[in-house]
Structures are given as structure tokens and as C-alpha cells.
């Protein structure tokens, strides 16, 4: 290789490295800035439930379907969709049952109204029961004396004493 050829090769190599160095950080920036993180995805996913495997929040659900839905959330976040829009989309597609918190409408109101009502009823019942409890009355000495003076009571007491003997 001539001296000139070597110089061109070195120049090309430097140029190539320069190009790579120029594009490398940009790719990283796009990956970090363009795509939402797992935490951002899971923040929404944990508010949704897997409609296939019951009682499993989407953020911890291991099935293929859930993985697809998490990716869909990521994609929608990247498109600039808000949390409310994403949740609305999921409700439209999979029904209100995917929401961890049922919407406050129609029959769902039972979930919100019944438990506080039951607690309230329990408190009222407990209060009334406790209030109904009666403290034993203190012994009235005067009343005891009056009773002892009664001949019938005195006879009863004598009979009892005789039986005990």
C-alpha cells in the first residue's frame, strides 16, 4: 500500500468512526425519549385487569395476551395518548370489567354504596345493643331491711335455713 493509499484508508476509518459516533447517541436518545419506560406502562397497566385470566392485574400478568396489551399501552403512550384515553380504549375493546375500579354508573353503584351502608348498619346495631346493656342495680339497704321485716320472707328464710341443716 502506498503512503497516499494508507492516508486515505486512515481518513476513511476516522470518517466512519465519526459517522458511527454521530448516530450512536441519537439512537440512544430516541430509545430513551421516544418509548415509554416499563414503569410508565405499568402505572396504567396496574389499573387494568386481564380479561382472560381473572383477578390478575395487567402489570403482573404473565400471559402472552397481557404482554400484547402492555405493548399496546406502550405504543399508545408513545403516540401521546393520555391515561384516560388508553383506559377508555380498553373499556371499548374489552368491556368495563378490565378496570380495577368499576365506573360509577348503573349496577356498579352497589359496589360503592352497599359496603358503607352495611358498615353504618353495623355501627347502629352495635350502638343500640350497647345502650341496651343494663348495669346491675346497687343493693338498697333500706329495701333489704323492709323485706326482712316481712313475716312471709322471714318464714321463707327460716325454712331455707332448716333445709340446709
Amino acid at each position: 500500500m502506498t503512503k497516499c493509499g494508507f492516508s486515505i484508508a486512515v481518513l476513511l476509518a476516522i470518517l466512519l468512526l465519526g459517522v458511527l459516533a454521530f448516530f450512536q447517541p441519537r439512537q440512544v436518545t430516541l430509545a430513551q425519549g421516544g418509548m415509554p419506560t416499563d414503569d410508565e406502562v405499568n402505572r396504567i397497566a396496574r389499573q387494568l385487569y386481564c380479561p382472560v385470566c381473572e383477578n390478575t392485574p395487567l402489570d403482573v400478568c404473565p400471559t402472552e395476551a397481557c404482554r400484547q396489551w402492555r405493548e399496546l399501552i406502550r405504543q399508545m403512550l408513545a403516540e401521546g395518548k393520555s391515561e384516560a384515553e388508553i383506559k377508555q380504549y380498553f373499556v371499548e375493546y374489552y368491556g368495563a370489567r378490565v378496570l380495577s375500579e368499576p365506573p360509577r354508573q348503573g349496577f356498579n353503584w352497589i359496589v360503592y354504596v352497599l359496603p358503607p351502608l352495611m358498615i353504618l348498619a353495623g355501627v347502629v346495631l352495635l350502638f343500640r345493643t350497647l345502650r341496651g346493656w343494663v348495669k346491675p342495680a346497687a343493693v338498697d339497704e333500706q329495701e333489704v331491711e323492709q323485706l326482712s321485716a316481712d313475716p312471709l320472707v322471714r318464714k321463707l328464710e327460716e325454712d331455707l335455713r332448716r333445709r340446709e341443716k
Partner: protein
Amino acid sequence: MTEHPTSASRPGVPLWAQIMIWSGLLGLLIMIGIGLARAQQGTIQRGDRVPSNLTLNLYQGYEYNGQSQVRFDALRGKVVLVNFWASWCKPCEQEAAELQQAWESYQSSGQVVFLGVDYVDTEPEARIYLKKFNITFPNGPDLGTRLAQRFRIKGVPETYILDRNGVVQYVKVGPFQSAQEIQMIIDQVLLRP
């Protein structure tokens, strides 16, 4: 002699409260009973009529006669195969090619309609699935799982074959093994008036 208060004189739960509590409990029991009865009902059975007001929105590129929505009552007079599937469902893949093969054999007759109902799926993945198996018959998402609830499906794949009157004539839970199996059933249903 003074009277000590007895339990009879203690304030009890008022009648109106008792009625409310017992009514509430009864209502709750009825609800649980209905829920259990529904859970044990299983899928719709042969002889059941599919509600006519059911509609299926279709994916772009998978429309029915150029329409993006199909109503079940508009399909009266045709034998309808309703297949519930999902891209995440591995057993669905076993029958995908068979369904397409069977569809191709009836497509030109105009007497049979195949409808693919994509159950709790994402559209991008569903499209990849449809392309992978070269599926061309009408397909669409089960929005809000309304169809799945009306058919009371237990999972995917499940297939229902309706006669010309919209009455279920065949229920298949799980994948079909061959296109011939599908064709044999449809041919029998086609013989019915």
C-alpha cells in the same frame, strides 16, 4: 317492690330496620343465585336462537360485502359459521388454515358466511395472525366482549354454526382437526330448510 329491667324492655332493632336488613340479605342471595346459575349455564346450545340484534364490527380489509359492520339478522337465509379466536391463542392456530380452506370451498356459493370474532386481542397482533394464515373471510374485534357474552363462550377457539334461521346447529369447543370436518358439518346444516 321495684321491678328490675328485663330483656323484654330493652330497646331492640326497629321493625323497619329488620325488614331492610332481611330484604337486603334476600336480594344479595338472589343475586348470588343468579350469578351461579349463569356461571353454570355453559355455552349456548344446539337449538338456541342467536339474538338478531347482534352486530360485529369488522377490520378494514376484512369487511363483509364491502360493509364494515355485519348484523346477524341480515345474514338470515345463509348458514353462518361464527369462529371465536385470538392471536395469543395457540390452539386457534391449529384450525386457522383449515377454516380458510373450508371458507374457500363455500365462498363462491353465497350460501355460507364465515365470521371470525377476535376475542380480547390487540389489532396489530390480530392482523399479523390473519396475514400469517392468509385468512380472507370477514373478521372483526369483539368490542366489549359483547358477542362472547351472548354466546357465553368459555374460551377460544370456539365455533358455532347457525342454520338459515339463525338457530345454533353445531357447537365446537376447541380446534377443528381438518377442513373436511368443517365441511361435513356445514353440508349437513345446508340440507336443513
